[in-house]
Every structure is written in C-alpha cells, then in structure tokens.
C-alpha cells in the first residue's frame, strides 16, 4: 500500500531530524540525564531537607517524590519549547533548512508538521529518560512509565507548537523575549500552584487553563 504523499513527506522530515540527532546522541543523553539530577539535588535533597515530607490529597510523600512530577513536566516544557523555539529558529533563519526542503515536493506546512512531531518526540523521550532516573531513585513508580508516554507526548505537542509560534514571531520581529516572558516563564514559575490552587487568588485559579504546564504536572505524578 502506498503511503499518502503528505504522511510520507512528514515522515521524511522527521527522519531528517532523527538522522541529525543520532550524531549528537551521547551529548544529548548526557545533558538530559544531568539536568534532572541537578534538580533533584538542589530541590529534592537541598530544599527537601528543610521541608521534609508533604501530605497532599491524603497521601504522604517525601518532598523529593513530591517534586518529581514537576521535574518531568518541566522537562517536557523545556525540551518542547526550546526545540520548537530556538532550535527551529536556528534551522529556519540561519541554517535555511526549511527553505531547502520546501522547494522540493515537501511543502512548507509538511516541514512544520515534521518539525513539530520531531520536537514532541524529542521532548517525550527526554521526559521518559528523566522518569527512568526517578524509577532508579524510587521517586517515580515504574508502572507509570507507560501512562506517562501519551501524557508527555500530548503536552510536548502543545509546548512545541507554542515554541514554533515563538520562533515565527521572533523571525518576523527579531524578538524572543516577548513570548518567553509572556508565556514560557509563566508556565515554569506558576507550575508550583498546580496542587495548591485552593490557596491562590481567584485569577490564578483560572490560569491553568492557559498555562498548560500546570495541568500537566499532576498528571505526571504518581
């Protein structure tokens, strides 16, 4: 059976990213493993020593276990948004890869779909790698690894799409700080409200619908 043209084109773009990525795999895995370990050390061990344990929704958890879902969610946010925003900007504006591909039978919209799916794939893999560290440190239950896949992928698609929109905005206006400050930073900083919405001002209670990291965080939890 012949694969439809558009799917084939998107697959070709995805494969192009994958082939380029394979070359930098050791470096990528190194940074993906290291970053959550730094987070665990600073927030989990450091702040955790001050806070001790936390009881939420009737369950008592160590602080380290409590924040681990946040570490997974922020990995999805960082990887998805950064790859979609800065990675795509470099590929589009400096490397001219979009231009090189979009003069072939692969259309520009297919290039963008391929880019979006690749960014999401990469963010999902990163989140799973981080979750594996959690399994190793007993801060994340192994049985949740599979459930995490669709949650992370759907969240990644959203964050990557926002990143791509930011890259498009930056290419037109040469301004990255605006989407960064207005959306990405809010997602990261206000994610802490995710389990404590009842104590927040009314405006903040409505914000999770917009800043999608917040609903993602408890979903990534055990």
């Amino acid at each position, binding site marked *: 059976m012949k694969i439809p043209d558009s799917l084939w084109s998107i697959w070709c773009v995805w494969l192009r990213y994958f*082939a*380029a990525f394979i070359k930098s795999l050791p470096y990528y895995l190194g940074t993906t493993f290291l970053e959550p370990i730094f987070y665990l050390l600073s927030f989990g061990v450091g702040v955790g020593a001050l806070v001790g344990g936390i009881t939420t929704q009737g369950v008592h958890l160590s602080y380290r276990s409590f924040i681990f879902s946040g570490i997974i969610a922020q990995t999805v946010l960082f990887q998805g948004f950064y790859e979609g925003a800065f990675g795509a900007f470099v590929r589009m504006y400096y490397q001219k890869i979009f231009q*090189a591909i979009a003069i*072939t*039978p692969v259309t520009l919209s297919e290039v963008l779909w391929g880019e979006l799916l690749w960014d999401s794939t990469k963010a999902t893999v990163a989140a799973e790698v981080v979750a594996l560290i959690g399994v190793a440190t007993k801060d994340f239950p192994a049985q949740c690894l599979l459930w995490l896949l669709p949650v992370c992928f759907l969240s990644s698609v959203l964050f990557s799409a926002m990143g791509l929109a930011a890259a498009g905005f930056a290419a037109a*206006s040469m301004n990255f700080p605006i989407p960064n400050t207005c959306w990405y930073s809010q997602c990261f900083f206000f994610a802490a409200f995710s389990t404590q919405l009842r104590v927040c001002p009314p405006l903040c209670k409505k914000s999770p619908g917009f800043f999608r990291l917040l609903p993602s965080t408890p979903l990534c939890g055990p």
Partner: protein
Amino acid sequence: MTTSVPPLQVIQLAKRYRAHWGGEETQALSGISFEIATGECFGLLGPNGAGKSTAIQCISGFYPATSGEVFVEGYNVHLHPKQARQVLGVCNQEETLDSDFKVYDQLVRHASYFRIPTFLAKQRAHDLLERFGLSDKAKEPVESLSGGMKRRLQVARSLISNPRVLVLDEPTTGLDPDVRRMLWEALAEARKKGTAILLCTHYMEEAERLCDRVAILSEGKILDVDSPENLVARHIARGEVEEEVRPGVVWKRRPNLEDVYLKLTGSRLGVEGL
C-alpha cells in the same frame, strides 16, 4: 500531459510584501510573464533589487504570489505544489545546504524528499559528485568546503531529481573561471537532455553564452525579452561603442548585452554611444 505544454509558464506574476511587521510594503514584482520551452535556457537579468530572487521564490512555490500564476509542466505551482516541484530543481542564491549532513549524505537525503529510491539516489549522488569534482569531499562536512565548492554542491543538489525544469539563482557568483566553465558544461548537458533552464545572473557574458532568450528585469517589471543578439540589434543603434576603461583610456568595441542592460535599466556608468 501533452507535449505541447511548455515546461515553465509564468503568467502576470506579481508579489507585494512587507520585509517585517510594521515595515513599508514593497512591490517586488508587477505582473511579469514569460514561458520557457523544452531544452531552452532563459535568462533573467536585472540589477540588485530588481525582483529576480523574489521571482524565483514565487516560481519555486516558496513564496505565495500576490497575483498571477506559475505552471510547471502544466501544474500550477501553488495549487498543485507537489506535482509541480517533483519536476523542478531549484538552486537558491542563498546557501541553503544542510550543515547537519556530510556532502554525500546531503544529496541522498535531498533525494528522499522526491521519493527517489535510496539505491538510485546513491547512484545519482555518486555521479553528481564526480561530475562536479567533489568526489574526494564526499565524506566531508559541509562547513569544510570552500565557497566555490558549496556553490557546486548546491547546483549538484538541484540536479539530484533529474528535473525537467531547472531554476538557478546566480549559480556562478564568486566562482573561479574554471569552475564556472565546469558549471556551464553541466548546464549544457542538462539542456541536451531536454531540461528547461531559468537562469538569473549578473554576468552578461554568461547570459550571452548560455541563454537562448533573455528578459531584462527592473523594478519588478520586464523591460524587454528576446535573444541576446536581437536585443543588442534592437537597442544599440551603433555598430561600435566607446567606453572609458581608465582615466584617459577609451576602448572601442562591438556592443553587447551589457550595453543593452545598462541602457534599459537606466545606468550608463560611463559607456558612451548607447
């Protein structure tokens, strides 16, 4: 598709755009029309900012046209981009080589976008690298190539799909004379196979040598189209022109396409007798 359809038809192509948000609107193209026959080489000449590169971006379907139509082998490039681009090879003025891949891999990867089977893509990549004198660089990263080599590779890449229409935007800019000749020979070979070529160039000698017909483009409009010989005969009345090449040194020579170009685009630059 009947054989009477010209490989490339451009009908009243216009493009208006803003370079950035809030910027002034520019009329880059104002309804240009031309068509290219099978095996013909058609030149697009014009000063910087005349609209040549915009025309190429619209013809390749990368920019949407504000109005007008472009047909490649009978397919509207904006309505049926896949079918049109399947037979189109484009070499942009800007370097668009994929720096994440080595020279050989780059060609094979590019072929995959045309759904060319891998074994065939590898064979063609080999042949093209050989043809363009890049075989010894096959395993090198793109960054290690000189400017001329990158240009050759980009032209080679545009030929990987054996296009029936080849669009080249200043392919020989900055190349050594011997490499330029190599490219000319490669283009002549492509023409022999029936490939129609649209060539944008600043080099008048190149246009006179390669092009069957030439269009002079200025401020988004085509000022005249004909063979180089007819253009010279039509626009340069005198059999001889005088040109001051250095202070006090005047050359007398036969008029050429450059004189036509300078006359039509309104730039005389010291050439007398036009």
